C-alpha cells in the first residue's frame, strides 16, 4: 500500500509536549528554593494550586466533551506559575480558588490552550488579588526556624473565613519597604533570594539561570525577556539619573516579580506577539507599565497588571509590527500590480 502525503515529508523533532515538559523542569529549581525558604507551606500551596488547575482542566474537558488535554502539560505549568506568584502563607483554599479561576476563566473560557488572550496564571492571580486583598498582601519572612515542621498559620485558614493575623509573621516585601518606608533592601538579598516576597520571585539569580536554560536549549524565545530587562534598565535608569531618590535600575530589576514575569510570564507564547518587532514593543510596554505603576501608582508592584495590559494590547501591537516581507518594494503604488 503506497501512502500519499503532501510535502514536507520531514518533521522537526521538537514537539509541544516536549517544550512544556522542559518549562516544568526549569520551574522545579525555583519551586525547590521556595520550599527551602518557606517550608511546608510553600510545598502545600504549590501542590494545591497545581492540583486545582489539573482538576479544573479535567472537569471542563469532561463537561465540554473535549478530549483529554492534560497531556500537553500546560495546566501544570499554569498551576506552578500561579503558585509561585502567591505569598507563602496564602490560605490553601484561596489557592485552590485561584487555580480554578486561572483555568476556567483564563483558559477554557477562550477555547483552551492556544486561544487565551491573557496569561491564565496572572488572570487567576488578578482575581484573588481583587477577591482576597488582605491575604494576598500578607508576607512572611524567609527562613523561619520551624518552617519544615509547621505551617504558616494563615495557610490552613478554613474556607470562607478570613485568616487571622499572627504576630511575628509579617515581613514586608522589598518593594513595599522601598515605597512606603523608604527602606532599601540590600541588593545581594534581592539577587540571592533572602528577602520576603511571593514564593517564586525571591531569587532573581535563580530565575535568570532557569530561564537561560530554556532559552539556550531553544525552548523559549529570547526577545521578550531581553526587551523587558533592557527597557527596565533604560527607563528606570533615566529616572534614577534625573533624581537619585528613585530606586536604581538594579533594584528595579531584582525586586518583586519582574524577573519571574520577564522570563516566565510574559514569555507565555500564546498571549504574546509572534513578530520580532511585536516582541520588542511588547517587552517595552511591560517594562514601562511596571515602572509607572511602581513609581507613581498606589501599588508597590505592577508587573502583573503590566503583563495583563500588554496581553490585551497584543492584537494592536501585531497590527503595526508585521514583518517586512522579502522583496517588498519600498514605494508600492496602487496601480502597479502585475
Amino acid at each position, binding site marked *: 500500500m503506497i501512502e500519499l502525503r503532501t*510535502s514536507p515529508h520531514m*518533521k522537526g523533532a521538537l514537539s509541544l509536549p516536549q517544550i512544556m515538559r522542559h518549562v516544568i523542569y526549569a520551574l522545579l529549581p525555583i519551586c525547590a528554593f521556595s520550599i527551602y525558604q518557606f517550608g511546608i507551606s510553600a510545598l502545600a500551596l504549590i501542590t494545591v494550586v497545581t492540583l486545582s488547575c489539573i482538576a479544573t482542566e479535567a472537569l471542563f474537558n469532561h463537561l465540554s466533551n473535549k478530549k483529554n488535554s492534560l497531556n500537553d502539560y500546560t495546566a501544570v505549568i499554569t498551576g506552578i506559575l500561579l503558585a509561585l506568584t502567591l505569598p507563602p502563607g496564602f490560605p490553601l483554599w484561596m489557592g485552590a480558588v485561584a487555580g480554578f479561576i486561572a483555568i476556567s476563566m483564563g483558559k477554557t473560557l477562550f477555547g483552551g*490552550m492556544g486561544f487565551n488572550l491573557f496569561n491564565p496564571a496572572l488572570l487567576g492571580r488578578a482575581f484573588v488579588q481583587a477577591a482576597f486583598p488582605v491575604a494576598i498582601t500578607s508576607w512572611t519572612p524567609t527562613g523561619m526556624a520551624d518552617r519544615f515542621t509547621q505551617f504558616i498559620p494563615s495557610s490552613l485558614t478554613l474556607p470562607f473565613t478570613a485568616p487571622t493575623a499572627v504576630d511575628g509573621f509579617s515581613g514586608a516585601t522589598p518593594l513595599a519597604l522601598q515605597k512606603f518606608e523608604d527602606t532599601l533592601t540590600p541588593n545581594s538579598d534581592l539577587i540571592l533570594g533572602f528577602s520576603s516576597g511571593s514564593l517564586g520571585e525571591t531569587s532573581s539569580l535563580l530565575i535568570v539561570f532557569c530561564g537561560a536554560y530554556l532559552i539556550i536549549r531553544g525552548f523559549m524565545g529570547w526577545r521578550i525577556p531581553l526587551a523587558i530587562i533592557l527597557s527596565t534598565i533604560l527607563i528606570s535608569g533615566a529616572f534614577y539619573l534625573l533624581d537619585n531618590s528613585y530606586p536604581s535600575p538594579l533594584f528595579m530589576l531584582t525586586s518583586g516579580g519582574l524577573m519571574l514575569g520577564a522570563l516566565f510570564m510574559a514569555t507565555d*507564547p*500564546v498571549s504574546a*506577539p*509572534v513578530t520580532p518587532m511585536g516582541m520588542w514593543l511588547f517587552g517595552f510596554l511591560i517594562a514601562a507599565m511596571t515602572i509607572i505603576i511602581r513609581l507613581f501608582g498606589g501599588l508597590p508592584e505592577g508587573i502583573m497588571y503590566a503583563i495583563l495590559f500588554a496581553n490585551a494590547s497584543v492584537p494592536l501591537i501585531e497590527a503595526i509590527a508585521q514583518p517586512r516581507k*522579502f522583496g*517588498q518594494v519600498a514605494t508600492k503604488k496602487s496601480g502597479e500590480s502585475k
Partner: protein
Amino acid sequence: MSILDLFKNKTFSHGIHLPDKKEHTRNQKIRRLPFAPELIVPLTQHFGAPAKAVVSPGQEVVRGELIAEADGFMSVPIHAPASGVIKEIELYPTAKGPKTEAIIIKTWPGASQRMADFDPVNIPSLSHEQLIQAVQDTGMVGLGGAGFPTHVKLSVPAEYTIDTLVVNGCECEPYLTTDHRLMLESTEKLLHGISILMNALGAKQAIIGIEDNKMDAVNAIKDHISGFEHIQVQAVQTHYPQGSEKLLIKVLLGREVPSGGYPYQVGVVVQNIATITQLGELLPTNQGLIERVVTVTGTGVKKPGNYLIPLGTPIRFLLDYVGFSGTANHLILGGPMMGSTVASLDVPITKPVSGLLVFNEQSIEKVSDEIYPCIKCARCVDACPMHLNPSMLGQLAAKREYDPMMETYNLMDCFECGCCSYICPSNIPLVQYFRIAKSVLRERPREEV
C-alpha cells in the same frame, strides 16, 4: 542569527537547519540504468503547453529522435529516450496526479541502443535568436525540480540587461546528491555550459553558489576554473532553503528580487547545475534531452546511488533494479521538503525529477501525529525565508478566511518550502493549509466572471 554565524559562510536570514542525509549517495558515482522494456514518455514534462506527438503507433524510432514537437514558445520538444517501436499514445498517471497523454515505446534490447546521428553546431557562430531556438530544440527544462523551459528563462525582456548568471549548486534538499555528483564528475561540461549561457545572456560574470557541505565540489570547480574568466565559485552556508533562487541571489549579490517579480528584474538569471551541465553537453552536439541523473535513496532502497536514467523509465522498473524492501510504502519524487508522493508505480521518471526517495513504514521522522492548537511560539515566523507570518496565516486558513491571507498577510509570496510545517511543535500542517488556500484563491476570479 547568532554571533558565531559571522565566522561562517554567507547565508540568508531565517530558514532552518536540516539533517542533510546525503551520506548514502554523496560518494556514489553516477551509474547508468539499463533500458526498461517499456518507456512511458509523457507529453507534459514541463511547465507550459504539452508537446505535440509527431510519431504514430507502430512507427520505429531511434534513440535521440524527435518524437514530439514544442507547441508554441511556452513548450519544449521531446526526444526518444531509447530506440524501439511506438506501442501506443495513451493516458497515463503522472507524478502530479491527473493522467496525461504519454508515448509508450517498446524498447529494443540494450545492445542495439545506438544514438541517432546529429550534426555538431558551432555555438559561437549562432545569433542570440538562433541560440535560444537551439536551447528550445534540446527540450531542456529546469532540472532542479521546476520543469520551467530553459529557453524561456533565457529570453529576458528587452528592457532588462543581465549582468550575472547565478549557477545554483546549493542542492539544499536533504538526501539529493545529483548536482553534487555532476559538479565532481562533469566539471568541464558544467563550465562549458556556463560559458555558453553567459554569452547567450550577455552576462559579464557567473557565480556558482554551493552549500558548504559540498566543499569537494567547490574545490573540484576551483581546480578547473583557471581557463574560464569571469566565473567564480562561492561557498554558502548549508541552510535550507538556500537553493531558492531569490534567496541565493540575495546571498551572492545582495539584491532582492521584488515580490511577485523575476530575477531578471535585478539583472540576474539563475540556472541549476544539472540544467547547465546537460546543456553544455547537448548544445554543441545538437542533441535532445533524453536522460537525467536521479538520486535514488531512502531506507527502503537496497542499492542507493545516483543513476543516469532514460526519461520515461517507470518507477517499478527502477525499484526492481535498485532493490527495495517489501514494506516500502512512501515514495517521494524530488526532495523530502518539496517533493510529492507518487500514487502508482507506473509513474515514469520525467525531466524535472531529481530524486526518488523510498521509505519504510516507520522510517520518516515523525515524533507525534497529534495536532495541537497554535501556541504562537513564533518559530515559524523566525523560519519563514520570505518573512511572512505563518502563524497568523495558519489561524486564518483554519477559519477559511482566505482573502485576508492574500491581502494582508502576503500568502502569494509563499513558495511552499515547508520550513513552517517542519518546525511547528504543534504539528500544524501549515504549508498544506496554504496550498489549499492558494488554489481556492486562484480559482475564485474565474467563478466571478
